């Protein structure tokens, strides 16, 4: 999409912002780390010379693996050029109940549903909660979330926490399963998510978590959520530049503390709708800005935390299908490395696993297209064309038999039966089939269990966490 010259201009723009404007870094220890590394610190304001940023970029890996907790290689995530992975997003306050289909506050049992369904869906690669648990102590929502999801999926979880206490809770559970800190460092089985503030602020909480991740070698995402026209420039190039600067402040700190730490450049870039006054999750600008952001990340040699499969619709309807599918398709095309928020509805206010299930189909569809056309002697098939000749057919050809499973994508939810059969099967709509598939997964899917020692670790971690918040 962007030319090399345009990318160079964006890249230079980010370095300019970091060197001449700088960010407010609210974390004292982080300022100390940055100063020692060679940054210019003036009160809370930190400016970073370009060479330091380039240094950090050189240290950060472009390709690495996040491992499935149970050793199932099919659930490993290989980050690297040309690979887009998909999963839900964190922390909406509400959830669409999969039985009543009503919007209500997100509760602990929803984490179990989300993890189980993500584990079963063929095109979902990682798991996130789609909500903040409301029926446990406020400060323990993230700890309970991870403890509830971890046993229900072997796909890597992108974890989220309020601060370092619950980051530690999460890490204890993950390393119990991995077989200790050393084993975890070799085969990390989750990713942690930190969110700085736009415009241009690195908060204490975000940096507490980042420093924790660097210390324990947890692959980390550092992602602001700027609003074009509100908390960032209204132009696509402007918001990309600012968001990259916000993310790269985290990069410099992380790579200074722990050279080689797997780091995802972040930024959920969207518009502040000037009429509805919301952060639009179904806007074409989101897909466009995120594609530009992805290209900049790849230009700089970093993987990107992408966004897609989300909608501003309040329910599972045509708007949800349209906005979600188009953004999934665009994400797949741009190749952002971990594409999250698959299942966000109502502008990120409500999580819906039903939306995730519907988007699983859109991801499969998109992946067939991005897989492209293979041209080899075998696929050219001139011999087969010759053998079949005029008026023949290919149904019985070995060539057909060899390729029909891989050359075609077969839908799980989209109905292609003829009218009579569709009628016979109950004249179902997409919405009916999404709900039925979700119920079917919950009734039948069995995720790989965690180790007994991890079960004990979860119990101990939650008991200690409850003690902690009593005070």
């Amino acid at each position, binding site marked *: 999409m962007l030319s090399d010259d345009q990318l160079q201009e964006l890249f230079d723009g980010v370095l300019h912002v970091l060197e001449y404007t700088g960010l407010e870094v609210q974390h004292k220890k982080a300022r100390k780390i940055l100063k020692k590394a060679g940054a210019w610190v003036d009160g809370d304001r930190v400016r970073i010379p370009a060479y330091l940023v380039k240094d950090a970029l050189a240290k950060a890996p472009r390709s690495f693996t996040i491992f499935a907790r149970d050793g199932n290689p099919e659930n490993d995530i290989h980050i690297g050029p040309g690979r887009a992975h998909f999963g839900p997003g964190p922390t909406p306050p509400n959830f669409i109940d999969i039985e009543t289909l009503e919007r209500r506050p997100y509760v602990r049992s929803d984490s179990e549903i989300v993890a189980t369904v993500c584990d079963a869906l063929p095109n979902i690669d990682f798991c996130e909660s789609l909500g903040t648990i409301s029926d446990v102590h*406020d400060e323990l*929502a993230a700890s309970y979330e991870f403890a509830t999801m971890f046993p229900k999926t072997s796909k890597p979880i992108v974890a989220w926490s*309020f601060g370092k206490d619950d980051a530690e809770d999460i890490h204890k559970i993950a390393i119990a399963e991995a077989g200790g800190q050393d084993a975890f460092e070799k085969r990390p089985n989750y990713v942690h998510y930190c969110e700085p503030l736009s415009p241009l602020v690195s908060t204490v909480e975000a940096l507490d978590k980042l420093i924790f991740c660097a210390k324990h070698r947890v692959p980390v995402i550092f992602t602001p959520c700027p*609003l074009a*026209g509100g908390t960032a420039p209204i132009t696509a190039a402007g918001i990309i530049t600012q968001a990259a600067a916000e993310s790269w402040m985290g990069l410099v700190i992380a790579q200074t503390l722990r050279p080689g730490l797997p780091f995802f450049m972040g930024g959920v870039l969207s518009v502040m709708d*000037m009429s509805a*006054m919301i952060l639009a999750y179904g806007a074409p600008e989101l897909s466009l800005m995120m594609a530009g952001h992805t290209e900049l990340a790849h230009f700089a040699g970093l993987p990107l935390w992408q966004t897609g499969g989300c909608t501003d619709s309040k329910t599972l309807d045509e708007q949800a299908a349209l906005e979600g599918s188009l953004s999934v398709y665009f994400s797949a095309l741009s190749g952002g490395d971990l594409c999250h928020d698959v299942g966000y509805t109502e502008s990120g206010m409500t999580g819906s696993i039903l939306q995730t299930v519907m988007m699983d189909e859109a991801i499969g569809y998109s992946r067939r297209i991005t897989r492209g056309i293979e041209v080899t002697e075998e696929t050219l098939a001139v011999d087969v064309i010759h053998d079949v000749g005029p008026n023949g057919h290919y149904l019985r050809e070995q060539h057909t038999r060899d390729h029909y499973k891989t050359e075609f994508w077969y839908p799980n939810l989209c109905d292609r039966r003829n009218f009579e059969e569709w009628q016979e099967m109950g004249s179902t709509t997409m919405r009916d089939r999404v709900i039925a598939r979700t119920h079917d997964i919950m009734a039948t899917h069995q995720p790989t269990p965690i180790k007994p020692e991890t079960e004990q670790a979860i119990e101990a971690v939650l008991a200690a966490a409850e003690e902690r918040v009593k005070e």
Partner: protein
Amino acid sequence: MSEILSELATAVIEGNSDDAIDLTEDALDDGLEPQNILDNGLMPGMDHVGVEFRAGNMFVPEVLRSARAMQSAMDVLKPLLVEGGVEMAGKILLGTVKGDMHDIGKNLVGMMCEGAGFEVKDMGKNIAPEDFVTAVKEFNPDIVGMSALLTTTMRSMGHTIKALQEAGLRDQVKVMIGGAPVTQSFADKIGADGYASNAASAVDLAKQFAGV
């Protein structure tokens, strides 16, 4: 209505601050009462903006420009209104609560309330309950507005209301709250007087509280 007042309304609608000031001065020179200028020039303009915004015909940047025009005119009128013993729309104290660093929504509410004729004191973000208490004592507002973006910082709103109660200040202010995760039932639970789902409805709520 005199022509100059309808021109003033137009200046507000178009967000033209310079014209709004000039026309206000002209109206005063013509001998119109400040209260008359406010009620029949500025207010109808701002009301029109509200209607157009809701209908989707005006956008946030335009509304803010109108609010600024309104405010510029009010800077001229206010001393005269106060002199004449006229009751102002009211004073609002605003802040994003403790632990929360997000303030774009609260800023928007502040700007729109100013446009509606309120005097707004914006305390900024990460405001602790005791700081709200101190500010209420100092500034004497009619309304306290609180905002939070995070489910985790929402409960600070409850703590702030409690602190106002304990300081004996709860009865002299109306409390309104807002922010993405906030709902009416949450407002009821923590004992706020009202909740607004966006900036435009926050202005309506404030006006309702002030009886204008």
